[in-house]
């Protein structure tokens, strides 16, 4: 049976990018369907009725949602270029970090970007605390997964392409040479990696997008007061 693999994504979604990178690293061909989130396709709503979000992976007609769930499926279905280690303890550690990224690092950095005043200050404290753990975790390693890019690196990919966009748009510093030399080195290694860089979202487009988002959010908050 001819294999049918589709990825529903947007050009900028960092979560969808994880899925794209994983498939490309494994050399698995797939069809891309770009969604307009302001006008979601009926297919997307059918495949992901609960969250109504991207990414969605559809493999031979069977849909999956939630990027980390999709990454594990990709890993189990296509065994070449493994993204997770074999050892159960190391796998657990990788899963721990992937979750830490989504549960703790991302929300605090997002709040530094989107919030103001005291909320922003508090978010910065949390974000710096989280970033310190990431910096420590990189000690002696080129990538979070070791010598090669793995699931944790893909999960943290948004740090490599979004954080400096947030910094520029908002006028804050989150990651710097003094406190995060290893994280900056990781970012450069990740960005330069073949395959990863071929699917790198346009920085200019990201700046425009997040600038607009911040303006809209700030205006909405001001109107609500």
């Amino acid at each position: 049976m001819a294999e049918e693999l589709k990825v529903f994504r947007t050009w900028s979604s960092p979560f969808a990018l994880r899925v794209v990178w994983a498939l490309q690293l494994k050399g698995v061909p797939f069809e891309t369907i770009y969604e307009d989130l302001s006008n979601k396709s009926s297919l997307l709503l059918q495949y992901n009725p609960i969250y109504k979000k991207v990414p969605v992976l559809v493999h031979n007609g069977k849909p999956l949602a939630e990027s980390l769930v999709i990454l594990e499926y990709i890993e189990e279905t296509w065994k070449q270029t493994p993204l997770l280690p074999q050892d159960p303890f190391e796998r657990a550690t990788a899963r721990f970090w992937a979750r830490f990224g989504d549960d703790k690092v991302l929300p605090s950095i997002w709040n530094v970007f989107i919030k103001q005043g005291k909320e922003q200050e508090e978010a910065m404290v949390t974000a710096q605390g989280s970033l310190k753990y990431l910096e420590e975790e990189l000690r002696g390693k080129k990538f979070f997964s070791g010598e090669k890019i793995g699931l944790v690196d893909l999960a943290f990919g948004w740090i490599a392409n979004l954080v400096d966009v947030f910094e520029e748009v908002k006028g804050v510093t989150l990651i710097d040479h003094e406190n995060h030399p290893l994280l900056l080195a990781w970012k450069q290694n990740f960005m330069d990696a073949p395959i990863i860089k071929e699917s790198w979202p346009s920085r200019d487009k990201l700046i425009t997008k997040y600038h607009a988002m911040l303006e809209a959010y700030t205006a909405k908050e001001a109107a609500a007061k």
Partner: protein
Amino acid sequence: MAEEVLLFGVWGSPFSRRVEMALKLKGVEYKYMEEDITNKSPALLKYNPIHKKIPVLVHNGKPIAESQVILEYIDETWQGYSLLPKDPYQRAVARFWAKFIDDKCLQPVFKACWGEEKDREKAAEEATELLKFLEEELKEKRFFGGESIGMVDIVASIIAFWLGVFEEASGVKLLTTEKFPKLCNWAHEFVSNGVIKENLPPRDKLIAYFRNRFGGANASK
């Protein structure tokens, strides 16, 4: 090699009880360490420095934190009873539902029972919508895992048992047989299972605990 399995938990926590259910279903011997959350042990802080929370599983000196990460570790490390299906797509579906329960359901369920009065109705509506998805997912299955209890059932134990405790302690009713016949049936089957039954905290003690801890705040408003 003598195997050492330690579990740091709290008697009433659905998160550490999940891990115990999994270990018991697999027949793994472990040593349980009850933590006092108001006075965390140095061992807990050493084994989970980032989150400083229970549960933490320590296997031959190596610590694993985050309950769902621990459940997957248990399934991969000890053979015998399977917590996840073999088929990759079915495994992904199971992971999806486990994540759905923790990421989406828990907060509204808790808020509906214990939130501020003004927030409760909206939270209850949200919780009801979310529980409907679980009701649909059960279809004609005995358990979320099919014929036998699996990882999703274990994660959903918070709905099978703790929700009932919240309801009795707070007076809020979410899981009715009219709205959720399958889910109620499943809950009953789940808590009646031999291994599960032995690993649930004492109901009355838990009701009293929640009433004490969360009930008072609203009475004073």
